[in-house]
């Protein structure tokens, strides 16, 4: 048991239809990219869930720290000129 390997962890992203974004589906264990792709196909697309798959070694994904959320996702309320509603349109002007 001591030497048992469960292979590397890969994250799986699937595009459900061409043109749509790739969405995280879950993960698989695999020793190389070929096996990761095959496992992702078998585990996450048995019912036509996708038209394209990305597999990424989990160790190469960096995630933001939830403790930094306040700072990181501060909406910068002092920069209201980023929103279209900040601008005054002349009476009678139509939107594009």
């Amino acid at each position, binding site marked *: 048991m001591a030497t048992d390997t469960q292979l590397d962890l890969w994250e799986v992203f699937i595009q459900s239809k061409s043109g749509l974004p790739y969405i995280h*589906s879950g993960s698989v264990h695999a020793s*190389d990219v070929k096996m990761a792709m095959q496992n992702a196909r078998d585990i996450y697309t048995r019912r036509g869930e996708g038209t394209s798959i990305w597999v990424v070694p989990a160790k190469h994904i960096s995630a933001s720290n939830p403790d930094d959320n306040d700072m990181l996702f501060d909406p910068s309320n002092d920069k209201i000129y980023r929103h279209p509603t900040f601008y005054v349109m002349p009476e009678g002007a139509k939107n594009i």
Partner: protein
Amino acid sequence: MHNEHSDTHFQSRIDNGEHIEPKDYMPEGYRKHLIRQMSQHAHSEVIGMQPEGNWITRAPSLRSKQILLAKIQDEGGHGLYLYSAVETLGVSRAELIEQLQTGKAKYSSIFNYPALNWADIGAIGWLVDGAAIVNQVSLQRTSYGPYSRAMVRICKEESFHQRQGYEIMTTMMRGTKDQQAMAQDAMNRWWWPALMMFGPHDSDSPRSGDAVKWKIKRETNDELRQKFIDKTIPQAELIGLTIPDKNFKLDEKTGHYTLSPINWEEFHRVVAGHGPCNKQRLDHHIKYHQEGAWVREAADAYKIKTAKKELVTA
């Protein structure tokens, strides 16, 4: 951050209906409860492949064989979704498998009963998967993000399993006297164990309080069991199956069925390892895990070899 403060903040996030993600702060008890519940869930999916796998080569038609194969493949997939989700809590796949094989982690006791004949495959799909669906639909709203997402995916796939089982039971009940007797016999053997799948009564369930407070469980064992009973009894009656309980009746006032008391002694005996198939299920898992070790080793060796090659040619 002071721990007490973090716990209060955590609980307020839960109360606000937020989901908890792997890197978020969580109390140690929450993490432990999730690891236990989710790994037990994953192990159940994988061990649950065994009683059905037993019937692949003996399915009565090519159609039923194809369906059974697809169903068992789904169960394996569900186990993998769940293992991935547990791993986000910082426990490795190897540790999880070791906990299963040493008996430290449990799996659903229902899989310690044997599938004796084809009617059992019907009863398993109809009753066991039916009970699992009631539980899993509720867990789609669980507070831990990765668990909730795995449940949504599983529920989408699982509903065919319950229908497959009910179709087998319906076909047998429309068949000969012998076939009807087989279906009824399977119903008699699986009915009570299926009801026990929801776990002890709320009054005897020591961990339920925390799980509900943390919104890991959104409904209690008894609430879920009642849902299952109310949905399943009419399905049984529709195809002419008898509920193996002399005292069951519909309470006109509440609209719920009431039953005889459940034999919890049997439940505890099977959980403790004395069911008909406990040893067989674990022995089988250990045997195939060990016999597959060389495949994992070879895959690892191939990875190292190809990585070296790339280094040389680069």
